[in-house]
């Protein structure tokens, strides 16, 4: 995919809502398309945080391993982003990401994205605002999940 096509794809991606054309262009210049097959591990818990992804097609499960089992935390799909912690300079991945079906995504080198944020604070502000929106949404989703709304009264999940 050339930069022009990348620009068009990024313009439609919900993560970039509110970005101005020059900012989308910057993202396009840093993006490259990647594909994963079904059941492929994109990254493992404990891996270094190097890449940030915007999902275009397919589904990815975030998983965490507990003794004797793997628990699925959430599922990400087209329009979602994957690996936001890499933009916050966190060292290691907290979860494992595994594709549930073939996935097409745009990948960004997190260090280069961070460097661009430092060089262009306007771009950096928009990116961090988009990121905060994601993190806030995930926090609300997690709180709702913890409420265990469908459980019969008095029943605990674990």
């Amino acid at each position, binding site marked *: 995919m050339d930069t022009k096509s990348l620009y068009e794809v990024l313009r439609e991606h919900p993560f970039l809502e509110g970005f101005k054309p020059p900012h989308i262009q910057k993202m396009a210049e840093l993006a490259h398309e990647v594909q994963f097959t079904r059941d492929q591990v994109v990254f493992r818990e404990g891996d270094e945080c190097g890449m940030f992804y915007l999902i275009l097609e397919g589904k990815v499960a975030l*998983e965490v391993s507990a003794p004797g*089992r793997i628990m*699925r935390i959430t*599922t990400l*799909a087209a329009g979602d982003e994957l690996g936001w912690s890499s933009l916050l300079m966190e060292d290691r991945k907290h979860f494992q990401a595994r594709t*549930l079906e073939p996935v097409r995504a745009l990948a960004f080198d997190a260090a280069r994205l961070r460097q661009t944020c430092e060089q262009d604070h306007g771009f950096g502000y928009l990116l961090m605002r988009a990121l905060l929106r994601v993190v806030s949404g995930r926090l609300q989703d997690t709180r709702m999940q913890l409420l*265990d*709304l469908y*459980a019969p009264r008095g029943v605990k999940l674990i």
Partner: protein
Amino acid sequence: MSCAAAPLMTPLAARLARVDKETHDTFTLTLERADGQPLAGFAPGQFSMLYVYGVGELPISISGDPNDPGRLVYTVRSVGRATHALVNRRPGEAVGVRGPFGRPWPLEAARGKDVLVVAGGIGLAPLRPVILEVLRRRDDFVRLIVLYGARSPKDLLFRKQLAGWARQPDTQVLTTVDYGGTSWRGHVGVVTTLFRQLRLHPAQTVAYVCGPEMMMRFVVRQLESRGVPGSEIFLSMERNMKCAVGSCGHCQLGPYFVCKDGPVFSYDRLRPWMERHEL
């Protein structure tokens, strides 16, 4: 829909025609009149008072097809003494029935528009008649979108029907579970996370929502943030319904009796009362 002909306070003698197991704790019961006459019809969203003789009476939403005359279908989750006794009745055994009661889902509000059904847990049961009716009158509506969240894969209701509905034209069915193991290849996350996969046309959408009250509050926030007005969002409320005719006051919610003024309300009417403590 002949509510007026139905007995108000005296249960009608009915018997169980079928008991179908849906999940580990949820059953679908089909009732018919003990004297062989047809039971009163219903509108999607209405409920009956089912009397388990010697145990107690409880309000249960009707989950069957509104165009299947003569019998009434209920989907019941066994969570307490009365529901446990009810789902353990066998075909042929007697059950008392009053109703149908309550205001139904206003389907006419969605004529010519997209129908968005959002259900959580057992909340899919009172919405199933809406889905069946929309599919029957398919030309009256544009898109049918069903978002359904359950606790885990083993708690998903009507799985075969969900798959069948998803195959219908202009119909999108998205399911999710709050907790899924690795054998579950579907979506994991609360029901509101499914909104990210939708392209809603807010001015052209009427939403019908049923589930735990907290879930409905989160769903309403999602809908409003996407521009769906409160007048086009309808919720089915659950309160401690006893008489079902608005005389005992047990199900009072602000100025309303849920049994008589509801159980279906537009969010515009509920807005001042839904988030008030101790109501």
